[in-house]
């Protein structure tokens, strides 16, 4: 084998020389590289040693500044002046977790009504007004909050702020638009049922948090609850849960804090409303696994595998050690889990694990989509790698790699104004201090090997990991039964019973 490769290389080299025309060669000028007098035995030997990295640059972390208006509105700014771009929007502190159990889906529906007409503009006029400024407004509705905003050229910021002011302070909640939006949301519930990853996520939240927990379901609701929602429900959710004391104006990019405060006063200074930021959802228990949940999708050529449990609330003392342990286990491409399941076995396009941070306890999750006929062996590797954190403790080298990698990636992860804006929103949703990223770096740097090993064993214990599988139920049964991970339970999907009729 080696011999053949060597021959190939030699042939390649010779042909390269032969086809390079002397006429094209530049005049010999020894100005640049030093030319050796006699050919060295291997002129390429220098490649055998990786270059020594130079002195690391000073760690440039994103900076966030905060102010507050008299009406209670928080203003968060991160300045970056290189390009005339600003990301601006309003972050609301109430999200999907604030929905009453009987009205699941109301947060999504309520917030999405903001872009369906505001001030004197209906849906189309509002959209055209944004489009005239080169803007496509974005809306996200998450467990801990919601955000509406836009990326905009500096010269158009004032005009966009005026529109956002209408959107947030004067949404019309038009009855006809509501009916349409509701039907669209019902349709979305049907559409999502076709996506194996969504099916997995839905069953996973219920498995990890419990179906009745505020984090126990994805956004959007169920056909039954959404069908029952009224315009008054949507409006009430918005009025009851939002207001200047439960919101922040986020501005990042070509803008300073004083400028942002001016805009905040001009466009949101008159905002009234009594809502305050909600309390974190309660911490769910992490009981031992008793069953393996299967969401049937007959004939699916892969099985989606989700393995996990409740993790930590943001700000918990174990957060940074667990972030490091999770990174070693499955956070990087070069982590134990991915190197095993993808690079060694070829079972999957990729396997990963992450510690989701939330205001309340977020999920600690491992994921892969695997070829259906290796569902059993692949799931077994998940369990073995989790158990292996105890039998093959995290090495100094693994820990150093995770620590350095996470810390050194901070500057590169904050290049864009929208990236900075997303971080600012999360700081607000999770009630974190403005120097959170400095604290993160310190937390990652200061976590000791003993702490990391302790939390790895405590939180990544396979016995308390819930398992959700989406795929062909017969194949899964055949593949997973021998693993003895608990009884196999079929999960009913809420939307499968009621495909809402349309016109």
């Amino acid at each position, binding site marked *: 084998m080696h011999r053949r*490769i060597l021959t*190939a*290389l030699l042939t*390649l*080299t010779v042909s390269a*020389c032969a*086809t*390079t025309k002397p006429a*094209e060669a*530049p005049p*010999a000028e020894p*100005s640049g*590289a030093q*030319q*050796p007098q006699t*050919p060295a035995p291997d*002129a390429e030997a220098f*490649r*055998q040693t*990786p270059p020594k*990295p*130079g*002195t690391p*640059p000073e760690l440039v972390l994103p900076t966030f500044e905060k102010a507050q208006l008299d009406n209670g509105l928080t203003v968060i700014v991160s300045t970056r002046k290189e390009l005339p771009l600003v990301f601006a929007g309003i972050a609301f502190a109430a999200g999907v977790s604030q929905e009453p159990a009987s009205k699941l889906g109301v947060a999504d529906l309520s917030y999405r009504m903001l872009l369906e007409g505001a001030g004197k503009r209906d*849906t189309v006029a509002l959209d*055209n007004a944004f*489009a005239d*400024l080169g803007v496509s407004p974005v809306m996200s509705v998450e467990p801990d909050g919601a955000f509406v905003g836009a990326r*905009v050229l500096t010269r158009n910021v004032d005009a966009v702020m005026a529109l956002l002011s209408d959107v947030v302070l004067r949404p019309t909640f038009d009855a006809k638009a509501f009916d349409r939006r509701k*039907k669209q949301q019902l*349709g979305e519930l049907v*559409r999502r049922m*076709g*996506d*194996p990853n969504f099916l997995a996520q839905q069953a996973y939240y219920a498995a990890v948090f419990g179906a009745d927990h505020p984090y126990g379901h994805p956004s959007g609701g169920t056909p039954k609850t959404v069908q029952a929602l009224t315009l008054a429900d949507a409006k009430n959710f918005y009025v009851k849960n939002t207001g200047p004391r439960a919101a922040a104006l986020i501005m990042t990019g070509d803008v300073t804090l004083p400028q942002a405060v001016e805009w905040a006063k001009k466009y949101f200074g008159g905002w009234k409303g009594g809502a305050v930021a909600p309390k974190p959802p309660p911490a769910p228990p992490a009981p031992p696994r008793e069953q393996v949940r299967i969401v049937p999708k007959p004939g*699916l*050529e*892969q099985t989606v595998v989700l393995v996990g449990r409740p993790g930590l609330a943001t700000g918990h003392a174990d957060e940074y050690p667990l972030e490091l342990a999770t990174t070693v286990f499955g956070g*990087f491409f*070069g982590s134990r889990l991915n190197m095993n399941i*993808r*690079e060694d076995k*070829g079972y*999957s*396009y990729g396997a990963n694990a992450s510690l989701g941070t939330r205001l309340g306890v977020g999920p600690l999750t491992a994921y892969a*989509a*695997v*070829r259906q006929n290796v569902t059993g062996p692949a799931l077994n590797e998940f369990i073995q790698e989790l158990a292996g954190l105890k039998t093959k403790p995290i090495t100094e080298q693994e820990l150093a790699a*995770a620590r350095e*990698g*996470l810390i*050194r990636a901070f500057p*590169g992860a904050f*290049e*864009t*104004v*929208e990236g900075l804006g997303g971080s600012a929103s999360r700081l607000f949703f999770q009630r974190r201090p403005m120097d959170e990223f400095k604290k993160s770096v310190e937390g990652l740097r200061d976590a000791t090997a003993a702490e990391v090993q302790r939390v790895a064993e405590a939180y990544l214990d396979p016995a308390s990991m819930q398992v959700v599988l989406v795929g062909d139920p017969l194949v899964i049964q055949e593949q997973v039964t021998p693993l003895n991970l608990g009884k196999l339970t079929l999960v009913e999907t809420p939307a499968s019973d009621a495909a809402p*009729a*349309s*016109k």
Partner: protein
Amino acid sequence: MKALAAAALFLGSAALAQQPEAKPLEPGRENLAIPYEKYTLPNGLEVILSVDRKLPVVAVNVWYHVGAYDEQPGRTGFAHLFEHMMFQGSKHVPDDVHIALMEQSGATDLNGTTSFDRTNYYETVPSNLLETALWLESDRMGFLLDALTEKKLETQREVVKNERRQGVETAPYGEAQEKAWQALFPAPHPYSGNVIGSMKDLDAANADDVKAFFRTWYAPANATLAIVGDFDVAKTKALVEKYFATLPSGPKPKRPDVKPVKVTRETVIRHDEKVATLPLLSMSWLTAPYLKPGDATADVLATALSTGRASRLYRRLVLDKQLAQSVDATQQSHGAQSVFTIDAVARPGVTTDALKKEIDAVLDEVRKDGVTQEEIVRARTRYDTRQLAGLQAVGGSGSKSDTLQTYNQFVGEPSYVAQDLARYQEVTPALVKQFATDVLRPDARVVLHAVPPSQGTPPSSGSGKEAR
């Protein structure tokens, strides 16, 4: 070894610098200019340098001018499979070291991607790791085959087959859309099907193919290295010289000569959708290649049809008639030929025929009246904002380094932004009307009905031939 040293001597001298003049930008658009320097090493490797000091990071981005377009019939998916092999180690870089080393150094935007027209590899690293990134990129450019084994190929073949299952077989509409694409570009056209290839061809790929592919397409003369970010120009030039100048190279390979294809009658595809739960109607047409006359017109029309709630198709299908969950029009620009597509997902209980009728009505309006000047201006403003936003990140998809590379590949001029935006300046309502009439003809399209079993039998309508 002796031959290698001789090559090093011969090729390792100073490069000739060449600096094409970039067109000045219009007032108000100065921020879109990207200052850069381009030169070519004697072995043919193009180098683009652009300093950007806003953060202490550097993007290293290598484009090989080879994609699915350059594959042989029966060897589809090869360029992409090969992309995976480029992360598996080379002569001086042990297996599994590349990504792990980059990750533990704090690299972001670390990946490789393959399209019909090119393959790229990139990483954004803290500025002190630039030399490490160059070491890694140069080693796989020069010495990949030394470390190639059958076992590595076998594993990556399985990984790629799983990637295909994830993106095609188990993704909503994945197989349906592949069928439509095959109808637009019938085999053996190199754009037929997916870049990722077919399971059959992936199974057939062997180590000899990998070697031949590497020797033909992965030579320095067929690659462009872009370095963008916080670096010292003189020191970096010396590093580029050190790591890349001695890599041997032949002449730039000639890309295959593929005749443009034409669709001359309506092709209707009925697909029993097994993954998605709602019916999809998709119409597609062959259009002008990237940056060629007609491409910008198609972009503007796609934006007017489906960007935002006020766009023509969204208004009619989603807001007014309430027949669709979503609707999307795109001009997918490629080097040989582009594809204009309209996709609409039906509301529960709505047929794809009903969607087709409404889309046709909107297209008829455009064929009759074009679009308004106002819609064209809005589209332009969006492109300006988007172009500027792309300059925020030095590396990764759509970034500053990617922008330089894209223009360089397609027009040989990394800073083509002024000319690119000027194309949109020239789009008029009349041109849009003409495009809709001449190009988006009903008898020159592929119409796909992807219908899940619970939604009734796929319709058999359509005047043209039935494919599949």
